[in-house]
């Protein structure tokens, strides 16, 4: 019942797949990939629309096709995969408890762990919509699973709240199935999904996007019968005079994603309040040595391509941890923080030594949309580098590549700022 493993990857979605492959490539012999669903690929398998892989493969693939590239590659490798197996506990000693219908309870002592559990969607409750609690209120991802995997249509007259990418994609998907999509309502003054998805999924199908509007109430005893829509002001306060009622049988929610870090918390890994993911250094190592995190469990990404790239960083780092005596010499440690107009930055710390890659990519989100602006990287004294951007949006993750040689040797802090206007 108790086994030992060099590397256990928790989660067989795009992050887990890429991390396991990269660790294998870098020489790790003993890898176990654990996936709770009955197939690899994670949420990609229900994303049957295209648009995946433009960055990573220079091709436009569907979700299952994108996943298949990695799954195919995995097949030739000596990587053990356990499907339909759920990790239920991880502790600080890297002891993993897993459960499956094939093997029951298993304890695995891992030398190194890569956390790749992905994220889940925020629910109605997380955003407090008043009203009744009928059938027909669901997250866009649940609807996507019903339609694309199970083959059932969950509704005919649809209101979508939130302009997250899954909501936009589902607006088109439902329209294609003949459902009446009455509109996508977004509380913010901008879409929270990719511009590309707004154009291809709403504009091309004549589905309206209403900004600064939200659902104020849900009606219906058994099944959703209608919702109240209300406009909000710049402080997100509802303007009650604008309230109107829309008949519908289904309310789809696409109101944000939350990294799934219940296991990380059990293991006492420190989390970032803003991203909801673990606090990591540039190798994606958490504050438990030998435990790494990548993909949407670390920060919610817009593009799977970025997930794959990030996971390679974690896979490579896990390999180095396992193969190089597990002792990382730190010559310089820096905190990375979000400055003016920035919501968060990943990684949270930099632990530099002679082996550190010469270029470190910093990922972050801006607080508000801006045009003709500049990203400035500073330490506590001076600007180290700046990068111009024609346009930035909170809905699209930004990154800059910072050459390590620009970092001052005596500095212990890096600040990322967005500078707009007049400069």
């Amino acid at each position: 019942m108790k086994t030992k493993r060099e590397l256990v990857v928790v989660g067989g979605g795009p992050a887990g797949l890429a991390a396991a492959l990269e660790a294998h490539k870098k020489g790790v012999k003993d890898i176990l990939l654990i996936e709770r669903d009955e197939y690899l690929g994670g949420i990609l398998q229900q994303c049957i629309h295209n648009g995946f892989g433009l960055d990573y493969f220079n091709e436009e693939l569907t979700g299952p096709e994108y996943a298949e590239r990695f799954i195919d590659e995995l097949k030739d490798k000596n990587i053990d995969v356990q499907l339909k197996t759920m990790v239920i506990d991880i502790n600080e000693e890297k002891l993993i408890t897993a459960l499956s219908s094939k093997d029951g309870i298993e304890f695995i002592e891992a030398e190194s762990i890569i956390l790749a559990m992905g994220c889940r969607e925020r629910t109605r409750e997380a955003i407090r919509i008043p009203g009744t609690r009928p059938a027909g209120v669901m997250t866009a991802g649940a609807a996507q699973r019903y339609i694309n995997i199970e083959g059932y249509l969950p509704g005919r007259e649809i209101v979508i709240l939130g302009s997250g990418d899954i909501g936009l994609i589902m607006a088109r998907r439902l329209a294609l199935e003949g459902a009446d999509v009455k509109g996508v309502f977004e509380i913010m003054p901008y879409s929270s999904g990719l511009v590309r998805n707004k154009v291809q999924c709403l504009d091309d199908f004549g589905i309206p996007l209403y900004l600064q509007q939200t659902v104020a109430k849900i009606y219906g005893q058994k099944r959703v019968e209608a919702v109240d829509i209300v406009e909000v002001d710049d402080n997100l306060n509802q303007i009650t005079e604008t309230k109107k009622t829309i008949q519908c049988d289904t309310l789809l929610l696409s109101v944000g994603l939350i990294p799934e870090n219940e296991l990380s918390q059990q293991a006492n890994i420190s989390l970032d309040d803003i991203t909801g993911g673990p606090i990591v250094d540039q190798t994606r190592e958490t504050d438990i040595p030998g435990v790494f995190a990548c993909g949407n469990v670390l920060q919610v990404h817009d593009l799977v391509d970025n997930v794959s790239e990030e996971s390679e960083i974690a896979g490579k780092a896990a390999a180095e941890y396992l193969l190089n005596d597990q002792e990382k010499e730190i010559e310089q440690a820096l905190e990375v923080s979000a400055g003016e107009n920035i919501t968060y930055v990943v990684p949270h710390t930099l632990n530099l030594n002679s082996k550190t890659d010469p270029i470190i990519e910093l990922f972050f989100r801006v607080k508000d949309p801006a045009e003709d602006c500049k990203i400035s990287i500073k330490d506590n004294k001076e600007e180290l580098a700046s990068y111009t951007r024609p346009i930035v949006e909170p809905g699209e993750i930004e990154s800059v590549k910072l050459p390590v040689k620009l970092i001052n040797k005596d500095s212990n802090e890096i600040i990322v700022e967005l500078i707009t206007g007049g400069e």
Partner: protein
Amino acid sequence: MNDKKYDILIVGGGVVGTAIARELSKYNLSIALFEKETDVASGTSKANSGIIHAGYNASKDTLKGRLNIESNPMFDQIVSDLKVPFKRIGSLVVGHSQEDKEKLILEKEKSLAQADIDLRVIEKQELREKEPDLAEDAIVALYAPNAGIISPYKLTIAQAENAANNGVEIHLQTEVKQVLHENNYITGIKTNKGEFYGSVVINAAGLYADKIAATVGENYEIVPRKGEYNLFDKKYGSLVNHVIFPMPSEKSKGILITPTVDGNLLLGPNSYVVDDKDDLEVTEQGLNEIWSGGKKLYPSLPGGGVISSFAGLRATIPADPYNDDFKIEALDKPVGFIDVAGIQSPGLSSAPGIAKMVERLIKDISTEIKAPISLKEKPTYNPELDKLPRLDDYKDHREDWHQVYQEDNNYGEIVCRCEHVTKGEIIAELKKSLAPPTLDALKRRTRASGGRCQGGFCGPRIAEIIAEEFNISPLEVTKNGPGSEILMERVKDIKADRDITYRRQKDEN
């Protein structure tokens, strides 16, 4: 239509109706219970604070005061028999001033004069030790160690199952339209599924008790008083250690904060009268009210931690809807009608005592009713339910779950990821005779889909298991009964229609 004769007919499958059914099931009587919804615990019993009060709130001259005090000690035996989660975590009524302190001392003395309840007034330092993160200005509290927390719907369901195991017939989706009586004697009831005959009718219809009573000429009105709640993610369940009340007002015990037996944190309820007995709407205003109420007691309430908001209705009888007593009595006319109405707070806490009281009332009228009965205990009566395995109970000794798994490998497949509910647990519940094929019923029994993702992942999977077990199409699976189907139609024949092929396979077997 139904020519079967019963000794006792119980209207209503809430915590009170099922407590009565279970209490009476130890006798050699034929008993039927009628519930209009798809499941027991579908009304007031599914949405309340889940508190077993110590019993000091109400005067001993009132039924609710006396029955609460009588009932509180009974819970240890009940939950041990029925395997219902229950914890005596104690309650604190928190005061913020010298004036509050005097009121609490007075409250304590008043209570002690009436009953032997363990009560203490504790000062700031001890209060801090018990609840380190309470508001700074909380300086005194009335501490009642015997108060407890329970799952109100699990209790109700367990009572119903145990009653059913002991021979009580439980008729779900059966709405009682009229109580039948002849020459001042009860003869039966008329329902949407025909007539049922019996000489005793117990009216435990909760919010609709007035409608039932009206059919025998009783004239009173049940007025719903709403309470709204927020339920927080399990990671916040340990923020407080006790049931924490503010100073009580005229209307209610106030907006409380408590851990639940399942490990969540519960905040609520507010209290206001509504017109509509189906009004379970959660309001913006209500949510704000409970939020600010909670903040006063506990300033660092986690804003993003709410996983569910809901409302429940208390069934009050006015004149004074905020302070009225239970109405429990056997009518002189017609003989055989027992009213158990106006069971608002502390109705859950008083349910065992109410059942005992109804038992005494039946004994009193047993020879006067149309078909007299004798209350003879039956030797086969078994007060206990089996404990079903739950992975969540094995947190500290996971290795022992392996044995459960070895008996049935469905216990190795986790369906609900947030609450760690296995397929084995879900099937075990579905195999019980009382389990309705709805997502809500399963949620109440197993917690599947009751966690932080609220069914986002496991909803489709649970629907599939229900469809398989009941041999129905996923299109027929509902949230909480007909009309609340979760799916509308098949998309296309993108894969073989599982429900059809499934049926075919079953038939061939």
